[in-house]
């Protein structure tokens, strides 16, 4: 049956419309979880607020289990689900840059738009910086191309690399995620910060 758009069950326009609705829902949940506050986001790195980690890991684990169950019921064909190809070097370099920007700016790209939507000035400045970065990368692409395209791995799966079934790997990941949740609770107690 699924993916709906790939199998022509819904038209590309309906697909965009659904993306629009889901996007609004995503933004709403981000805002309601307090992600529009740069202090909350930076809290992850200082240890006084681990909500970011909890929300994103819960989201990831839920989506993973959901897809695996959908696949089990025959509702979605995982072979047809598009996965961005992995370029290892650029993933690491990009991750470092993004992480540094995250600590310094107190936002990640999605949450900065959330913050801007409720009128936060720091979020708007962050978006400005984001666009400068985008233009710098786009116009400087010939400079970065070799780095960008090095170590291509198409769409690898950790489960395949470890020779595990997807289900067993999912189980391990859930255990790891839960372990991190309890660790996060402990860290929050250890580095409390009352007012922000």
């Amino acid at each position, binding site marked *: 049956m699924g993916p709906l758009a790939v199998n022509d069950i819904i038209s590309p326009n309906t697909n965009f419309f659904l993306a629009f609705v889901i996007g609004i829902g995503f933004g709403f949940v981000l805002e309601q979880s307090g992600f529009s506050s740069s202090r909350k986001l930076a809290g992850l790195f200082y240890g006084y607020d681990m909500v970011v980690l909890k929300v994103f890991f819960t989201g990831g684990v839920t989506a993973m289990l959901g897809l695996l169950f959908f696949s089990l019921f025959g509702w979605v064909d*995982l072979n*047809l689900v598009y996965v961005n190809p992995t370029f290892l070097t650029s993933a690491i370099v990009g991750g470092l840059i993004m992480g540094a920007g995250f600590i310094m700016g107190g936002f990640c790209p999605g949450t900065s738009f959330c913050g801007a939507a409720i009128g936060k000035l720091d979020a708007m400045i962050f978006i400005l910086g984001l666009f400068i970065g985008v233009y710098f990368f786009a116009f400087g692409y010939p400079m970065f191309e070799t780095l960008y395209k090095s170590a291509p791995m198409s769409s690898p799966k950790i489960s395949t690399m470890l020779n595990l079934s997807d*289900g067993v790997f999912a189980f391990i990941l859930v255990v790891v995620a*839960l372990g991190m949740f309890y660790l996060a609770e402990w860290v929050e107690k250890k580095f409390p910060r009352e007012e922000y």
Partner: protein
Amino acid sequence: MKPLHYLTLILMILALIIALVPQNTTRPYKLTALQMLTEIRAGTQFVSPDEVADKIVKKDPSIQMIDVRNPREFDMFSLPGAINIPLQDILSETNFDLLNQGTKMNIFYSNGSTEANEAWLLTRQLGYQNNYVLQGGLNYWMETILNPMPPGNVISNDEIARYDFRKAASMAMGGGNISAIAPSAAAPAGTPKPGVVPVQKKKKASGGC
């Protein structure tokens, strides 16, 4: 119980289930078994040798003959314009664009029709369009096109027309029983041009059968 405990409980149960069930029971195939059965019973994948011969003689650019036998057999004999994709390579990625496309009419053939049909079944279940099978395979092709049997005594016009067409097609492809053809037609047998003329005349007939 704290919310985190609820979450732990639910996630652990779900993760345990997903870890224990057999992996990935989804089908990469697009058609259900019933749809396949309907298509197989209708035999829509088959193209008659006469139709194929007509297209080959006319050098119809919309068809692509695909030989699914092994390369050795392909080298020994193949149909004009055919390419070789042995059955074991039918799923290889290099052939994906060729087999899954919307413009050309791919016609699989093998010695009989079994292997060609297997190739068609696989590609059809993957949801590919425009793949067909040469009815009866090369064996039937030899019988009907390259060495056509003259019709018996009690014959209809259709049968004569079909026989004429097959003889002409055989000639155009430089094969078969040329000696059986009348001397006047046999002389230019080497060039494809004389083949074209009789074929156009017979087109109506082939439509009739």
